[in-house]
């Protein structure tokens, strides 16, 4: 009698164990099925961020254009928001002036560095120089701003008499230095992707290193190089602290690099540091300028992606 009881209790135990295991497995499987959705949820944060950026920029810009006319904003040549003048062209002009100066500095330096690193430098030299260039890319922009204002500007002032403390030249040069590593390392990547057989073919025909670099490697890597330059220009357009510190706060529609200018980004900083109440016209103007800036950089980024995808040479 007692034997039977034990057996039956044992069978019950085993069965409950099996049950237990099965339900555990089921739970685990349920969890396994939920996990991808949880992960997807966090992946959607990045999409929400983009949507949020578009939403804020558009919403507040609409608020702005209910008070200032669209044509006045985009054709006006006088930007003095605190006295009700909202012509954005001086800010765009300031941004473009800085960007042109930066490009003139960064493209030759960056490209020549890239050619040197990819075609001339030994592996050892490249291993030393590349990380140092990366350091340039990692320095906070506020530090570059300090450097432009306290070091580059005085030097420029001793060369160009009468140069004001805040000027586009100093800021532009330093923005250029900041984007050199970007041009250099992305272009070098593109050149490295050119297969060696092409180089060796050219060497076999008796070409010098220079001829190989300029007539074989650079043309073959051109799409990557241009994409790198366009991306660097986009970075220069969006650069904030260097120009805020060194280029001044004078909205000025000029192409004279010796003058003080205000970029779109510098205005946003200026207006945000001042006392800007929510819903005021100055507050809205931040976003109207912001969306213009965003459009400029977006177009450049998409252009860069398009160039590198469309014109890529596959070997």
């Amino acid at each position, binding site marked *: 009698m007692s034997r039977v009881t034990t057996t039956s209790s044992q069978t019950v135990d085993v069965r409950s164990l099996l049950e237990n295991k099965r339900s555990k497995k089921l739970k685990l499987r349920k969890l396994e099925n939920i996990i991808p959705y949880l992960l997807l949820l966090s992946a959607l944060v990045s999409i929400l961020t983009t949507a949020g950026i578009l939403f804020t920029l558009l919403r507040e810009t609409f608020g702005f254009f209910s008070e200032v006319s669209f044509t006045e904003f985009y054709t006006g040549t006088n930007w003095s928001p605190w006295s009700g003048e909202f012509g954005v062209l001086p800010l765009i002009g300031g941004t473009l002036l800085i960007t042109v100066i930066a490009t003139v500095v960064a493209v030759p330096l960056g490209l020549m560095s890239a050619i040197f690193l990819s075609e001339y430098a030994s592996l050892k030299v490249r291993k030393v120089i590349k990380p140092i260039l990366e350091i340039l890319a990692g320095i906070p922009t506020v530090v570059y701003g300090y450097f432009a204002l306290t070091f580059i500007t005085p030097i420029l002032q001793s060369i160009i008499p009468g140069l004001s403390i805040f000027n586009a030249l100093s800021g532009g040069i330093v923005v250029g230095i900041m984007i050199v590593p970007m041009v250099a390392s992305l272009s070098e990547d593109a050149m490295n992707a050119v297969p060696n057989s092409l180089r060796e073919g050219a060497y076999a025909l008796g070409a010098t290193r220079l001829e190989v670099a300029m007539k074989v490697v650079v043309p073959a890597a051109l799409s990557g190089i241009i994409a790198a330059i366009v991306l660097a220009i986009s970075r220069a357009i969006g650069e904030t602290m260097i120009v805020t510190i060194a280029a001044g706060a004078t909205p000025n529609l000029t192409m004279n690099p010796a003058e003080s200018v205000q970029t779109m980004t510098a205005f*946003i900083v200026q207006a*945000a540091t001042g006392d800007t109440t929510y819903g005021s016209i100055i507050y809205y103007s931040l976003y109207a300028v912001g969306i213009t800036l965003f459009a400029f950089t977006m177009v450049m*980024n998409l252009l860069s992606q398009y160039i590198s995808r469309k014109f890529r040479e596959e070997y």
Partner: protein
Amino acid sequence: MESKNLNGRVLKNKVMKTLFFSATVIALVFLVLLFYRVLSQGLGYLDWNYITSFPAPYPEEAGIWPGMIGSLMLMGVVAVVAVTIGISTAIYLEEYSPKNKLADFIRVNIQNLAGVPSIVFGLLGLTFFVYLFGIGYRLLAGGLTMALLILPVVVVSSQEALRAVPSDVKEASYGMGASKWQTIVRVILPAAVPGILTGIILSLSRGIGETAPLIIVGAATAIYTLPDSLLSKYTVMPIQIYKWTARPQEEWQFVAAAGIIVLLVILLLMNALAVWIRNKYQTRY
């Protein structure tokens, strides 16, 4: 190519080589000048007192203490938010996402977000976190804004770390009867942790030097009490440096330079840590 031109061609090659080399050196010279300038201006003002003092009306008494604590606390918020969301996103994209349009869209979107100027993130934070969510000009608003800003970098570097785990390790795990999630948590993530950690430290070091978005979401320029909660007023090192640089008297430049030294040393330590982790724990398959 005629042989009588050979000397000319070789000479041209040599000249251009020198030119290319000089261009590379120019960039490096700028770096040296920058460090020299910062050190020569800042070292005189940098002492223990500077590190542990609050901002002051006189350059000799000013210090960077609230900025250091603020930067540290801000990075705490950023790390928690960006790491959770960033790694989950990376796992989704690398391990789960079927090759569908949504996943492609997320990838393209992350690539584009990385190209948005940081100041635009500031505007996003101003509308959403400061006003719509009603956080105000507080630490939490700055932290969330900064987290969104560095999120693309965290995602991309985590993706690379996950991708570097070879598939035979995964297949061995599946072969032992492990489920997908078990494989991810017990096999793939541990193998990818050094890479992920390196990426996170590098993204944080980018965040710690960012100035513009924090100005927009209202980091204070001078505060005299340390932030003690997520809803405190705060300042960060780059903003203190910016404010000091913007003052006209020359002594304040020295104060700014001293702040830059502190900031650069912290960045250097973070990067050294990242390199150390990578070299020490990276498994080569």
